[in-house]
């Protein structure tokens, strides 16, 4: 069995995390923002799996499951909010939400 250097897995996770962060910070379409958040959460899960593979334990997979449920709940609420926002403003531009008018 060949081996994989553990830092390669973690570097991959951090690259994915940074890409997701760029997406969250730059995009104005709120659906893209939510998708980039998913990328970030997924990168975190990858880091957990790499760590659990490092020790040969199952705890990392348990944490991944918790992240998965977190992501599912977050997406459900986030998409509900997007639908509500689209009904009120007829746009998916996230910057309209910064205009707080009473």
């Amino acid at each position, binding site marked *: 069995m*060949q081996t994989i*250097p553990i830092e390669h897995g973690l570097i991959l996770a951090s690259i*994915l995390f940074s890409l997701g962060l760029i997406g969250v910070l730059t995009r104005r379409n709120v659906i893209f923002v939510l998708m980039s958040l998913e990328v970030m959460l997924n990168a975190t899960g990858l880091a957990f799996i790499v760590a659990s593979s490092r020790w040969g334990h*199952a705890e990392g997979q348990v944490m991944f499951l918790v992240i998965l449920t977190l992501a599912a709940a977050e997406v459900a609420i986030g998409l509900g909010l997007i639908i509500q926002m689209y009904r009120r403003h007829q746009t998916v531009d996230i910057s309209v939400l910064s205009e707080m008018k009473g």
Partner: protein
Amino acid sequence: MIILFYIAAIVAVISTLCVILQSNIVHALIYLILSLLAVAVIFYVLGAPFAAMLEAIVYAGAIMVLFLFVIMMLNLGKISTDQERSWMKSSGWVAPGIMAAILLAQLLNVLGDYEYDLVPVEVGVMEVSTLLFGPYVLAVELASILLLAGLVSAYHLAKK
């Protein structure tokens, strides 16, 4: 196996890059699904088949379907693609790019001198479930409450 890891890693990075650079939302979603599946392959290589399958079932199969469903409901067609393109031309890329690059550099710096060759050992479903319904049963309960809360609030928010 090891070559599969690197192929999947390259696919994941490129498709994630496509997600954040894409202006067509449906194409971006397909790239995101591809990225998630590539990560699932990485999980399998790293000896976590259960997590890999859950990634494919829950992430790529259920959560992304929700996204697609909402995109269909909102009917974001060609106009939104053009709008998206006009938004992406702005110079808003610079500062976030620099910030993310600094973060990445920091992480690489930290991880660079951490050298350990991991030998993927398969950790099957049984071990994970024993842990889940043993010491981590509270986490399962919390997750289920979280899902219930998400269900109720999503229903409340999306209702007319």
